């Protein structure tokens, strides 16, 4: 066991930190939900970050570290699926990639070149035309949301590949959630450190100190579970990571908004960028009960209900 980053991972982290600087603050005049950056996407594409999971010295663990790091930014792009799911399919899949789960709206659907279509137990791949999809610009989820309006041809994946998609979607969800949780906790720590009421920073009240400390404990736990799952590729680890991510996010989102007061309800503070991304991820793959069933199946040897 070695919990420190190795030289390759440190190099990736250093490069990403540098890249992140340009995307680290939201524009003052931005008062919306989906803060997407095509420039960020281009940079990641050009520097071949979407390939790192396939590079032997890097692997999915480095990709998960990258996903976590980038998820802390106010700007977003279609990152997690391309970095963590695509490399595990033996198919040339053009990106952006989006998931349509049981017909629901999904992230990046309107711009996707590849759709992962999940319908009950079956998983297939489709390549939509612009006529097949529609953007949902009024969504509160802080991703560009879209839905499927047409019926593009769906090529079903064999069971083994379908399972791989589910597993790596879980890892992707957990890694992205780890970064979102961290960003939300960081923003809240900053807020309660400066916001004063009753003559003192509200972060000096123990009711809030304990609450934010608990949020930090959950956040770090999600990160470790996500990284371990990316490292092992094990279905049980993936399910545990996604479950802990969705479960922790459910609690942390509520707490950070409470601690941020009305300011957290505005589109000025950026908190919603992270919390409403998390809210989008909370329902993936059946939400907590879906992940719990996967844990039961893979860790407790129960048959899938």
């Amino acid at each position, binding site marked *: *066991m*070695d*919990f*420190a*980053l*190795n030289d390759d*991972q440190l190099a990736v982290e250093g490069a990403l930190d540098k890249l992140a600087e340009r995307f680290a603050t939201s524009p003052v005049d931005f008062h919306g939900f989906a803060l997407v950056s095509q420039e960020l996407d281009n940079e990641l594409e050009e520097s071949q970050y979407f390939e790192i999971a396939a590079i032997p010295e890097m692997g999915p*663990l480095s990709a998960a*570290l990258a996903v976590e790091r980038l998820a802390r930014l106010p700007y977003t792009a279609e990152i997690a699926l391309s970095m963590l799911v695509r490399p595990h399919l033996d198919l040339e899949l053009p990106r952006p990639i989006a998931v349509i789960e049981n017909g629901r709206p999904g992230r990046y659907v309107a711009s996707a070149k590849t759709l992962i279509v999940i319908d009950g137990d079956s998983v297939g791949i489709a390549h939509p035309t612009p006529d097949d999809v529609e953007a949902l610009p009024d969504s509160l989820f802080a991703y560009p949301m879209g839905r499927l309006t047409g019926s593009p041809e769906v090529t079903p994946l064999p069971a083994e590949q379908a399972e791989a998609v589910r597993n790596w979607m879980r890892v992707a969800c957990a890694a992205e959630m780890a970064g979102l949780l961290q960003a939300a*906790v960081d923003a809240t*720590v900053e807020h*309660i*450190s400066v916001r004063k009421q009753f003559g*003192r*920073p509200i*972060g*000096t*009240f*123990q009711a809030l*100190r*304990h609450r*934010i*400390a*608990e949020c*930090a*404990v959950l956040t*770090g*736990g*999600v990160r*470790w*579970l996500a*990284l*371990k799952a990316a*490292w*092992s590729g094990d279905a049980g*680890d993936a*399910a*545990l*990571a996604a*479950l*802990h991510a969705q*479960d922790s996010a459910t609690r942390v989102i509520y707490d950070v908004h409470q601690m941020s007061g009305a300011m957290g309800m505005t589109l000025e503070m950026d908190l919603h960028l992270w919390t409403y991304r998390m809210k989008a991820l909370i329902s993936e793959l059946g939400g*907590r*009960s879906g*992940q*719990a*069933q996967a*844990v*039961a199946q893979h*860790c*407790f*040897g*129960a048959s899938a*209900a």
Partner: protein
Amino acid sequence: MDFAWTSEQESFRASVRQFIQDNLPDNWEHIAHGPASKEQSAFAKQFCGALAEAGLLVPHWPERWGGRDADPWIAFILAEEMWMAGEPRGGQYMNVNWIGPTLMLFGSEAQQERYIPPMARGETIWCQGFSEPESGSDLASLRTRAERVGDVYRINGQKIWTSYAGDADTCFLLARTSQGKGGISIFLLPMTTPGITVRDIPSIIGEGDIHEVFFDDVEVPESARLGEEGQAWEIVGKALSLERVGIPRFALASKTLADAVKLLQSRGSFGPGVAEQAAKAHAACEAARLYSYSIIDQRAKGIIAGAEASVGRFATVICERLVSEFVVEHVPEAISGAHPLLLAHHQRGIVAGIASGAAEIQLNLIATQFLELPREPR
């Protein structure tokens, strides 16, 4: 970053498992109830002797003291396996984890020669005399006095919640030699010294675990003092940094959960709702496990964990709570004695957020030291 065990670590774990299997008696689950029952304490002495002979009691200690300088991972793997088996070392885990190493760092030569070899042979039980009726979390407010009278110290006062005091040979005692935090000193006090009275405190945790210890004009020579007068806070800080992730509670919690799940599956009561609760508890156990490993990794690299240790401790409290609540709700007969090992976990698990530093104190430390929030006004 790498989550794999080395082959040395794996074979060490296998050898510990084998040892446990070969050395625990058939009726172990009836002995393991209550962490410090008379039977368990008696067994622990015999068991630790055998462990010592097999080189498995203190492998992480220096060769000079009977170890083989194994790294902290080895000590932790050992602790995981022991804890999962119901801690057959009894109170001696404290010697192994922190009392021995603390004496190596701060003890006089005479103290080291007197106390360390018997620990390394598994012959001796210590107790930790810190908490007092008025000083729990606020340990620095302790009042037990050690007054200098001629060439001895005369000790008066009371300790409480002292684990293993009924069986202990020696007490690692904190007593006040002057005012303030800097006025606390440590004494290595043989429990047979005249003036010491030990009273068992009946508790949920089981027979023989916690005690009151009274000190009435107990006299010890200066040579019983560990370190300098007033050095206790520094020494204890160091000692507790060894102790803070000392107990791999997550290991027993996760084994208990797995046992409970198997039981429920065998009787067809593991439906989706139950499975969801079990899955959440399992995830919490694994989060606590990784936190603990990350701190052991730091220790193996010579870094003394700071506030991360509190983060890991709190993660452990969460997992202990979820597992113990799961058993109470779904295998309630365990609490009435139907499954002694589940009961033994319950009795150990419920104190996770209290013993050796309450959960809320960990949260205070996380807020101040880890998140660096402005401090609470005093």
